[in-house]
């Protein structure tokens, strides 16, 4: 029965031929209902792939409207890696060079490195109307966007000065992939992570010279840079794992990129670290559930919290860990928000051409947040945070920061 093997051997790497043309993916794509120009996952993904394999000229420029949220993949009954097919096609066929604007938005670590040094000036400048108008007119970054602020001290330098020497007192260690956001924009998240891990009995180590995970580089077509970053990060993680139990992240998009996009889109083998690279919430959940560690909560903590599962968290299937941890805190009144995309999708919503679409996608989520009227929103993704804060005025906190605020002990 050797001929039967054909069934197993006729599936290509990105499995587009598994598609049964049912259009279910299109039902769950957040872009399709709000942007009539976007052909939708089925057409952009498996259908288009057939044509593109024939001839690259069939590449459709509208593929840039894909948010890479992977909601189509979560819904597909045939397990087609639709989002991957679309991203891979953009990389392979979308040869247009990234514009200056895309370059700036994508180079989160380089821009962050510059901005941190002059943070007060940059923050003030980014808020000034004429500056916004220039960004809008020349760079096509939408002027209605408010920019995440840059911190004047990076997390890394805070860590070296204030936390490093205490960490070696612990017997067990985890390595922290802080990502650009915690480093340049919001070091408090990194501080909170250190506080929580220390309370659990773990010392924290940094990866020496971590690079941006590359999520924004990939979506802006800067693949070579992304691949270099990926190789370097994997090397650093391999090194760290010889003495640390795990490499943990606090951003769902960074963790998703490292675990899934590195092998699927960049062809960077991460098998040596993948099982031990995860989000802190999952690691902490496992620890607490197994009874190997405990957290002491303050008894005066009170908050009404609504949790938004970021798209990449939805794809990772780990939203439940964040939800469980937040719910576990005494004094928390918890609401799980409906599964909706916030519309920002990394740097996507910053671009002038996407602003309206981005806000229309997020509307159901914003409406629900206003209706629930929580003290704040919990969410594991920094770009969702910007989007929700800007669009609703509600404060957004990472679950790790919520844990840090709720446990006993000094900051």
């Amino acid at each position, binding site marked *: *029965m050797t001929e*039967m093997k054909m069934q197993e051997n006729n599936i290509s790497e990105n499995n587009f031929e598994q598609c049964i*043309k*049912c*259009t*279910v993916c*299109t*039902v769950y794509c957040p872009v*399709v*209902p709000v942007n*009539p*120009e976007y*052909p*939708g996952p*089925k*057409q952009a993904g498996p*259908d288009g792939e057939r044509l593109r394999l024939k001839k690259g000229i069939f590449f459709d420029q509208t593929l840039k409207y894909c948010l890479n949220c992977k909601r189509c*993949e*979560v*819904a*597909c*009954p*045939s*397990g087609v890696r639709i989002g991957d097919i679309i991203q891979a096609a953009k990389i392979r066929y979308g040869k247009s060079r990234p514009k200056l604007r895309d370059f700036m938005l994508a180079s989160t670590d380089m821009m962050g490195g510059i901005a941190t040094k002059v943070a007060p000036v940059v923050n003030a400048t980014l808020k000034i109307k004429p500056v916004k108008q220039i960004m809008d007119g020349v760079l096509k970054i939408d002027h209605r966007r408010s920019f995440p602020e840059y911190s004047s001290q990076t997390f890394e330098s805070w860590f070296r000065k204030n936390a490093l020497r205490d960490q070696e007192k612990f017997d067990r260690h985890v390595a922290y992939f802080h990502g650009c956001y915690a480093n340049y924009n919001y070091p408090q998240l990194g501080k909170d992570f250190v506080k929580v891990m220390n309370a659990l009995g773990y010392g924290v180590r940094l990866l020496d010279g971590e690079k941006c995970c590359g999520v924004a580089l990939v979506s802006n077509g800067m693949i070579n840079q992304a691949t270099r970053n990926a190789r370097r990060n994997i090397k650093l993680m391999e090194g760290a794992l010889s003495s640390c139990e795990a490499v943990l992240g606090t951003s769902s998009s960074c963790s998703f990129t490292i675990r899934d996009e590195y092998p699927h889109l960049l062809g960077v083998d991460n098998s040596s670290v993948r*099982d031990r690279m*995860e989000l802190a919430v*999952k690691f902490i*959940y*496992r620890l607490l*559930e197994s009874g190997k560690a405990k957290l002491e909560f303050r008894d005066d903590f009170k908050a009404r919290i609504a949790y938004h599962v970021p798209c990449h968290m*939805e*794809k*990772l*299937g*780990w939203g*439940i860990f964040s939800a*469980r941890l937040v719910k576990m805190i005494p004094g928390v009144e918890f609401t*799980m928000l409906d*599964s909706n995309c916030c519309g920002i999708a990394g740097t996507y919503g910053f671009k002038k051409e996407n602003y309206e679409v981005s806000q229309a996608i997020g509307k159901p989520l914003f409406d629900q947040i206003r209706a629930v009227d929580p003290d704040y929103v919990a969410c594991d993704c920094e770009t969702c945070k910007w989007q929700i804060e800007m669009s609703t005025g509600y404060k957004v906190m990472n679950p790790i920061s919520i844990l840090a605020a709720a446990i006993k002990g000094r900051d």
Partner: protein
Amino acid sequence: MKFDSIIIGGGLSGLVCGLRLQKAGRKCAIISSGQSAMHFSSGYFDFLDRTPDGKTTKDLKEALGNLPEEHPYSKIGKERLTGYMGSVKEFFSGCGIKLGGDPFSNGYRITPTGNFKPTWLSLEDFSLLENESVPWKKVLIANIEGFLDFNTSFIAESLESRGTACRTSVIDIEEMQRLRRNPSEMRSANIARVLDRQECADKAVSQIKQQLQDEEAVLLPAVFGLRTPEVKDRLTKAIGREVFFVATMPPSVPGIRTQMRLKEEFEASGGVFLAGDTALSPELAGSRVMSIGTVNFGDIRLEADSYVLATGSFFSKGLSATPERIVENIFGLDIISDTQRERWYDTDFFNRQNYISYGIRTDSRMRCIKEGSTVENLYAAGSVLGGSNPLYEGSGAGTAIFTAMYVADSILSSVNTTL
């Protein structure tokens, strides 16, 4: 992570079982790898359109008497099953889903190609016909421009042969131009998405009103109401004539909406729905399942007192076929099937296909069997079960719903007796 019950598969069966357990106070999780058969259904529920020996059924209580022993309905037992049938509409309305029809007798539906077929209950979008004659003298059959999954001329031909005068028309909505650029995107769910926008629905209504003459009813493809229920009532009111939806080729707009509603209801009642995750590597000790893993959970295990397998048939990957045999994909459970491959299928596609009746073997309480012995806390529901041929009999939804109720009740009663 601990639950009272874990259900593998989030289709009609998994959701009904989860809802019943959750509403009875049990903490449930549903693990579901992808969307289910509901997305492709007709929008009508079948219970038993004909008996395994090919007789068309009308009075369903009567038909139940003659089923083979291994049929899932026989395992539930006639008395209990008729009890379930009597409460089925109430169960669904408790989940925000209105069903039409009489749970004890079959009616008729019009298929996308214009045939009349027996069926059981309908989602609220549809109506059931009492018999094979057409209730109208004159109808307008209106289609959406460029939509190929709904064939107005077949339907007109069929109705005319039954003595009804038919006119056909097309509704042309500008906002669908983008879809029409690519004919493979002119599918029901995509069209429904456009028609969910009030201004587009209004355009459709005003065109239909202009096209109508003295017809009593207008027949439309079921491409309305992807997100919003009660669309038939609204259209009827707006148009001022009877609106009769005809199911389209898959995907099914009413089916998708119903699946979403059931999932929402399950979550609203406190259930955990793990979407896009696949259950694997179960751990068994003796005759019990101890825990189950998933792709996304990695080394973190899910534990429960009872487990329900509702992974569907071949289409949903609950079962698969190797060249030699039929396999249940997670536990490797015992299967009811023919050992000779030649018996699996008939080369005439439209004949009864035996493989559709293959599925897992259970005891009388729908507990699964592995290597000849019962797995005490593993139950099965829905189309993963063997012993009936849902395609031939027309018994898909009935089997999914009632085996799910039966399993939920088995679990609840075993909890109550051990307490």
